[in-house]
């Protein structure tokens, strides 16, 4: 009888119930919240469902030493987590993004690239604020990149600059990307007048296939020569785009933007979620990171819209730009461009801004990769 009781007691020690802490339960509830938001509201479900479930996986209380946790060498989760830790998932996602992005909107109106550049101010605004809050420069750089509104870039840079903060940075970046419509709309309305919101922009010109093929090659050469440290992201982004536009590598492009990006997105979401183990995630720093992440999105949107308003002072007639596309400079593709379209149509149902907003939106992807390269060069 004693043996049975002893064995049951030993078994009890191995269960999650015996090892549970309130922090684990809190993180599991956050995971459930993420899944609920994704399913009920439809906000970034492809990211929030894997991250939410990953949070639950990572916070199942367990007896250490069983070689199953994400931070235990050689475990299955740890092996999958290497793609995040070593930073090779994000460039693969960029390959897929390149293979699915149509840069025509940008090529037809190259001046809109500047809006994408202006919105990167969010990154550096958050960097300055993070320094003020006492973070080291490398940590501040990793936190600042949340303002780029680009999950893979945030993971890539934080894995290099501040691996210990990566979980909080990644979750913060993806959460605010899901909340782009909620964050950006009030800022756009507060900073624009009704007259400005009604500005109609001329239809973009047709872009030839030749231009679309030249774009990834020239774009890559230029950006990579200026910021070689952004090579993994920029190289994959433009390579993916060349696969798409070359017209002779359809199968490769379809794999990159289809099965490959799906597999990597699943794994990156799940493992980033699993990396948010309560003991490493529920800290004062994580709260600060969430606050700074929100501020970086606010700064990026504000500067994007104000930049267009300022630019309009020098433009005449139909050259004027609707400031409602200023928010799209943050690279949450295509969500922020959709916000421009939706807000624009609230005031003029026939004014379609989507195609115009896609220009700064994809410029934001390039801009945030360049910014990540600069931060890596200075602080890596």
């Amino acid at each position, binding site marked *: 009888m004693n043996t049975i009781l002893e064995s049951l007691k030993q078994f009890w020690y191995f269960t999650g119930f015996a090892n549970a802490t309130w922090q684990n339960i809190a993180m599991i509830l956050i995971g459930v919240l993420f899944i609920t938001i994704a399913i009920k509201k439809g906000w970034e479900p492809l990211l929030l469902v894997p991250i939410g479930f990953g949070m639950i996986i990572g916070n199942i209380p367990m007896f250490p030493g069983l070689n199953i946790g994400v931070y235990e060498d050689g475990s299955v989760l740890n092996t999958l987590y290497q793609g995040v830790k070593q930073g090779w998932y994000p460039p693969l996602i960029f390959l897929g993004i390149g293979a*699915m992005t*149509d840069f025509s909107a*940008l*090529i*037809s109106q*190259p*001046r809109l*690239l*500047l809006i*994408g*550049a202006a919105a*990167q*101010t969010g*990154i*550096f605004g958050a*960097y*300055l604020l993070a*320094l*003020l809050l006492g973070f*080291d*420069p*490398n940590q*501040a750089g990793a936190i600042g990149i949340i303002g780029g509104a680009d999950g893979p870039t945030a993971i890539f840079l934080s894995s290099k*600059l501040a691996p210990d903060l990566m979980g909080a940075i990644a979750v913060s970046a993806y959460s605010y990307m899901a909340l782009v419509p909620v964050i950006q709309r009030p800022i756009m309305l507060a900073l624009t007048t009704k007259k400005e919101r009604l500005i109609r922009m001329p*239809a973009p*010109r047709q*872009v*030839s*296939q*030749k*231009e679309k093929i*030249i*774009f990834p090659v*020239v*774009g890559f050469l*230029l*950006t990579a020569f*200026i*910021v070689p440290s952004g090579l993994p992201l920029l190289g994959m982004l433009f390579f993916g785009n060349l696969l*798409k536009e070359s*017209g002779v590598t*359809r199968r490769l*492009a*379809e794999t990159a933007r289809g099965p490959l990006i799906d597999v990597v997105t699943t794994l990156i979401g799940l493992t980033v979620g699993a990396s948010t183990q309560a003991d490493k995630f529920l800290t004062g720093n994580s709260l600060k990171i969430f606050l700074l992440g929100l501020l970086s999105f606010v700064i990026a949107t504000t500067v994007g819209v104000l930049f267009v308003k300022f630019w309009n002072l020098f433009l005449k007639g139909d050259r004027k730009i609707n400031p409602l596309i200023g928010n799209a400079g943050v690279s949450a593709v*295509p969500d922020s461009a*959709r916000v421009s*379209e939706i807000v624009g149509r609230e005031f003029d149902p*026939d004014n*379609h801004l*989507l*195609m115009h907003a896609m220009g700064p939106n994809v410029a934001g992807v*390039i*801009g945030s990769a*360049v*910014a990540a390269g*600069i*931060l890596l060069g*200075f*602080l*890596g």
Partner: protein
Amino acid sequence: MTIFPFKAMRYTRIFFLTFFMLLAGSGAWAQNLTDLIIGEVLVENTAGLTDGYGQRTGWIELFNTSNGTVNFGGCYLSDDKSDLKKYHIPTSDRSTRLGPRQSVVFYASGNASQGTYYTNFTLRNGSTLYLVSNDGRTVIDQVEIPSDLPADCSVVRVPFGVKEMDFETNVSRRPTPGSYNGDVDAKTKSQVMKEKDPHGWVLTLISILVVFTALIILAFIFGWIGNANKRLQSGQPKAPKAKKVKAGDITPEVAAAISMALSQEFGSEVYAAIALALDDYMGGGIHDQESLMITIKPTKGSTWADKAQNFRQLPR
């Protein structure tokens, strides 16, 4: 007539095969043995490092200057130019893989039977030490040992420059066998930035400037390419002038907006319905090269019931 293309194809294949082989070979060479240097040499050891047998002998430190792993098994060490294969580093030892920016020490005990890291010659002042590639001929690196090198002093190669890929040769009174010869207390970039730019304004201004510069140049280049393209097309027959867009007209912008809004709400299968409706509305026969757009091409007759359309393209 058919011989020429066949020959051309064969030559093309040979060309590419040769090119890739050369590329592979040069890559292996460039990333491997040439990245090794003799990092430090000590001849007379009276008070320093002891070997695995408790003896104090002269020693040779090899340093991997690259950021990749180098396998030095099969290379040679020698102090005699006429006999470059004097000591052969065993290839059978798995420990001969040297990690990025790491170093390894060989004891010049004069007795190679003591192990992989014991050379069959001893060191002497005034000689030249050679590190020779595994072909036994190519000298990868060499160090001249001064004839007046004091006891317990080493000849050391100290890295300098921004990249720390250049080396100057010094004599050191504080030998550092097996460890980095540069500034071991060097600060990280982050620490340097914290001292130089504690509030982050300099980095912020430089970064914003660089981001803007990169994207402005890109904008100029594509503005120029676009204009050049327009000029090229100006020689061709003009496309019919677009009608003035009225409210409610279905333009490509409207089509894109409708398509994206609906796909967000209902899923990708509505693309087909939208595309068909637009195609019908705009008179049929819309063709787009975009691979993510639905292409509707008018064909002669229907292929709907064709057997080929119903075959699986790939076995599953």
